[in-house]
């Protein structure tokens, strides 16, 4: 009797699982057919790991760029939207591969076609891989509490102030440089988490936070009454782009075409506004 019951239950479970999978499959197929009809970009000479699918590597766990939704399985975020839209415009389905940041680039061409994971274009990286045109610019920004009356117009105005940065980020390196070269005298408080920086700002432990403009936009988008950006260092921009294998120039060209279209019809700006609440540059 027991065995029979177990059999019944496991059978029901299997059926349920199959039904679930089936439904999902159906939905994706519907999406791709719709995409195919719209496809205008020629991808005939692009080599993909799986035909008809753009496989994207991403370290899913860096909101608002990429993160899992509350169900713990559905990826969501700014990068996710960008990559999905790129794939749609290329007439492809998209498949995200969650991977650790360490060694994320080693997986290109073996585990995924490209990486879309808030990757900054750097000269070192350009030696081993190629990048699409940048889809977002990131600057170092100074954030103050909304009610602050400090007169800060650029980094030199931080002289004698106490600031918070996230440890080992560009902000940390930049401000440490300002301090170690003696350009300005500034107390730099380094934190493991960027949220700690903003809490310190709110509590009045520090005068300002220096942080990526994207992150700043995200925080101000959520708390528009609490913080304000007083300076963005546009002279030293970091550009985020999709990265792919050195020989995959065909994919690079196709993605660039898709990104150009997304830029032209305002998709990137509206997506940025959606995720960051601020305005894209």
């Amino acid at each position, binding site marked *: 009797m027991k065995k029979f019951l177990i059999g019944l239950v496991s059978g029901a479970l299997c059926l349920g699982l199959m039904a679930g999978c089936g439904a999902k499959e159906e939905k994706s197929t519907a999406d791709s057919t719709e995409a195919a009809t719209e496809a205008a970009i020629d991808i005939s000479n692009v080599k993909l790991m799986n035909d008809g699918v753009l496989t994207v590597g991403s370290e899913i766990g860096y909101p608002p760029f990429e993160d899992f939704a509350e169900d713990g399985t559905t990826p969501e975020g700014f990068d996710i939207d960008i990559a999905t839209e790129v794939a749609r415009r290329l007439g492809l389905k998209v498949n995200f591969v969650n991977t650790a940041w360490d060694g994320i680039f080693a997986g290109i061409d073996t585990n995924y076609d490209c990486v879309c994971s808030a990757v900054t274009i750097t000269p070192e990286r350009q030696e081993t891989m190629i990048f699409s045109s940048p889809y977002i610019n990131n600057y170092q920004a100074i954030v103050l509490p909304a009610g602050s009356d400090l007169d800060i117009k650029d980094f030199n105005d931080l002289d004698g102030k106490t600031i918070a940065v996230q440890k*080992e980020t560009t902000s940390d390196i930049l401000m440490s440089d300002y301090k170690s*070269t003696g350009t300005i005298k500034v107390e730099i408080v380094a934190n493991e988490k960027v949220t700690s920086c903003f*809490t*310190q700002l709110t*509590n*009045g*432990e520090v005068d300002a936070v220096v942080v990526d403009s994207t992150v700043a936009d995200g925080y101000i988008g959520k708390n528009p009454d609490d913080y304000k950006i007083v300076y963005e260092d546009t002279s030293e921009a970091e550009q985020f782009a999709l990265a792919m294998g050195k020989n995959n120039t065909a994919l690079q060209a196709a993605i660039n075409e898709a990104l150009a279209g997304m830029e032209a019809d305002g998709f990137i700006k509206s997506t940025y506004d959606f995720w960051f609440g601020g305005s894209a540059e």
Partner: protein
Amino acid sequence: MKILKKVVNVKGWQKATKRNIVILVLVIIAAAVLSVMKPEKEAMLSCTSEEVQNMIAQDENSSRKRVTITYNSLVVINYCSVSSSGAREISERFIGFFGKTYPANEGAAKVIGQMVNYTYRMLGCGENVMHGAKLTILLTALTILIGVVLGIFLALGKISKKKLLSKLCSGYIFFFRGTPLLIQLFVIYFSVPSMLGFAWRDLFSAGDNQAVYKGAFVAALIAFALNSGAYCAEIVRAAIQSIDKGQYEASKALGMSYGQTMSKVIIPQSIRRMIPPVCNEFIMVLKDASLVFAISLMDITTISKNIMTSEGSYLVFIPALIIYLVITACFTYVFDKIEKKFSVYE
């Protein structure tokens, strides 16, 4: 003067102690001589190449300086490096010892230079008051000190016959032992001020640019002491309860009150039994001190990790280990002395 004579009881010294003192004095004299012989910062900078000299000169008038000059003076040896930031990074390193400057860009000299630099940074020299070894030592020592005192009161409360007091103390101990120190630290540093509307930094004068670290240290000390108090309370309770019942009876028969019995008879006897577990607690606090990084303070562990990630050098752990061992040795020595002092009667 009498006290001094008592402390520095020269006649009472053993032969070995006398020999050690002589060695120590000689080492101090040698170190003093060597430290005077060290080349100055300017002398070391004059050894740099023309290119670097030009860069330094250029920087003088620029509003965005690009050259970092590091100068670490560590007792008998010093380290100096000049490096530029940006894509074309240039760096020149030197060590100074016994009146001479040696280039330290490669080989053994480079390793020595790195060691000096790492040790200097981990000791927290030239940094704010709450940095590196200074922070670790100060935090650990004060935590244990306050923790033991707090622990004694909590333990007395817990074994008290007053039900409410006993429940309160038990609750306190349960709470602080049952929740992670890191979260207690977060609550005290982040949540409490935002709820009560003050900033830890405001405890110090507005003009003090290190107020942020001092404020964070105060918060860390409060969290650590409250937490350690709970652990020490259990240590103290066990020690008190291990004292023979006859001691209570004798005290009572002599007309001593509960408070007098505790303070004059029971606690002095239990201190000796507390020392070994308190020594363990001290080691725990020493390790836990790295948690203060969560509130922007850097202890030895955090600094060594930082150096490791930014420079990719695993050498950093050697000076880190040595610094920790020296700290532990010093504290163990103090604990041993206390234990000896309290066990003369055994």
